[in-house]
């Protein structure tokens, strides 16, 4: 375990969970010269993710988190399994001194949305990334609450059926609580609610997120637009496919905003921007903690 890489040594990363999120993360980390992906560990020997990892020469296992402890030399573990599984593994990572980044809605550790609070959590042993929808919408809510108080923020994440796997489908309850709370705790609204809509249309739709911020009708919409525009530009640095599709406008007592996320197409095709937005956050957190200055 180390706090910063020294003399150019690569950070040894393990990914637990070989589904959509974990596999896409593997591709992203491999593109990053600061990291070495030493292990992708899952539970399903037939998983596409493990097959890809083997092809690329990345170490694989079907023993889940056990493989991380067996290796004994992991700097950071990214877990993309399910809330229930991570709750079991988290204390073991902490006991072993392995920095854990949680991509499930387990919310064992501190919640981080990079453009909002990356700099505030430099020592927590476990960082939680909430959900794909939280990563896509909390920045926008925060951009609004930076300008005007929001008594209630509501988000609707509309995703392609093919972009969400069994982990997400089994965790809608946890996803709902975690994301709703984050709109308040991290986004700054007084209260939050999140919805997820799954659409099977072909060709697969891009991830679309609508944000409603109840502010009362008398708000400086220009100031809000400027704030949101700036925030979108910040997110775009790591996720170029993140863009506004519905310019902030006042509708009755709330502001309505729409953003779309097109992915890089590393693992799943570009419709799966939900993977990119949470994985970009994962890499940003790991980079800050273990690599120092952002490359």
């Amino acid at each position, binding site marked *: 375990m180390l706090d910063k890489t020294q003399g150019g040594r690569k950070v040894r990363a393990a990914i637990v969970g070989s589904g959509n999120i974990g596999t896409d993360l593997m591709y992203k980390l491999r593109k990053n010269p600061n990291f070495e992906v030493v292990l992708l560990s899952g539970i399903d020997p037939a998983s596409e993710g493990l097959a890809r990892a083997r092809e690329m020469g990345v170490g694989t296992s079907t023993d889940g988190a056990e493989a991380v402890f067996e290796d004994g030399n992991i700097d950071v573990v990214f877990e993309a399994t399910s809330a229930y599984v991570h709750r079991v593994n988290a204390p073991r990572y902490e006991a072993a001194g392995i920095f854990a980044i949680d991509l499930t809605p387990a919310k064992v550790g501190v919640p981080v949305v990079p453009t909002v609070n990356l700099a505030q959590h430099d020592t927590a042993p476990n960082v939680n990334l909430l959900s794909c929808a939280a990563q896509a919408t909390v920045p926008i809510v925060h951009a609004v609450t930076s300008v005007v108080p929001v008594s209630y923020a509501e988000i609707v994440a509309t995703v392609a059926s093919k972009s969400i796997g069994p982990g997400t489908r089994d965790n809608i309850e946890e996803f709902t609580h975690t994301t709703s709370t984050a709109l308040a705790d991290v986004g700054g609204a007084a209260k939050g609610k999140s919805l997820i809509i799954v659409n099977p249309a072909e060709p697969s739709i891009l991830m679309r997120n609508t944000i409603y911020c109840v502010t009362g009708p008398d708000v400086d919409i220009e100031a809000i637009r400027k704030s949101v525009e700036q925030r979108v530009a910040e997110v775009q640095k790591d996720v170029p496919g993140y863009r506004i599709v*519905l310019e902030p406008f006042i509708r009755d007592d709330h502001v309505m905003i729409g953003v779309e996320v097109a992915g890089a197409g590393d693992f799943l095709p570009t419709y799966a921007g939900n993977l990119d937005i949470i994985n970009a956050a994962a890499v940003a957190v790991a980079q800050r903690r273990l690599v120092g200055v952002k490359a």
Partner: protein
Amino acid sequence: MTDITFVDVTLRDGNHTYKHQFTSEIVSKTAAALDAAGVDIIEVGHGDGLGGSTVHIGRSPEPAINLIKAACDSVTQARIAVLLLPGFGIFRDLEECKEAGVSVARIASHSTEADTTKQHIRKAADLGMMTVGYLISAGMADPETLADEARKLESYGASYVNLAESQGHLVPTEVAERVRAVRNAVSIPIGFHPHNNLGLANGNILAAIDEGATYIDGSLKGFGGGAGNAQTEATIAALKRAGHTVRTDLPGILDAAQVFADLVAPQPMPVIDNDSIMMGYANVYGGYVLPVKRAAEKYGIDARALIMKLGERSVVAGQEDAVEQEAQALAAAQAKAVA
């Protein structure tokens, strides 16, 4: 000659027509009348079920639990049901409902996404409720897909699978195909919930029953999304004429329809108007009928064009934001064309 269990959804699906503004008074008096008429199951809540009161869909004036309690306290024989879409409704909602006296929980998803309901079906079953797997927009999936999804629901422990044809898009032979495919796939009973956009609700019900459906949904005065649900009082009469047995009595249900109509006056019944015909034809979710009309008026665009856009996008239930966004896009294109 089938024994039918009748599920009245006036006080839930009907909330779409009433812009989600049902009050405890409307609910308690209507539920009492439905109960007196011998309706088996009465579904209550926001149009989109538990947790549906949102900026996205439409906000209700009272907490849903007040309406649900009002219904539970107003009946002696009928079972009270709630609808829950995971992501809208949460575990705590089911717990509160159970405490209030709800005994049936219908857990819903889009017709191709049944595996998003497993958690909540299990939760409702753990609470001792009769749990039902509810497939929304059944007319957007082919028979084989519906059969696969029904198998999943059966494996999660659903007591029956309800095929909700939310668009009023299918004709009787297409309904028959789907019910048949599901009947060949599962051992649990099958329910059917039509909408009337093409005037086919009761015909589709009879076709569904001929293929083995035994639970039927309807709504007083047809209140519900799109051109409305099967009109309960007409459905009861049709079922009896077709020789099926149902506990609900005709005079009682006609009285209930009148009680309800008086309570919601001057709100008229949903009708098969041009917009709802287009929506039925283009297979666009019925819950959008009022949002489409509102957006067309607000942005000065043609409702029909908006409906066609939504059809092209194959929107599913819960995409009210797409209605607003497509309306804005049409208005912008219109402004450009004129310029």
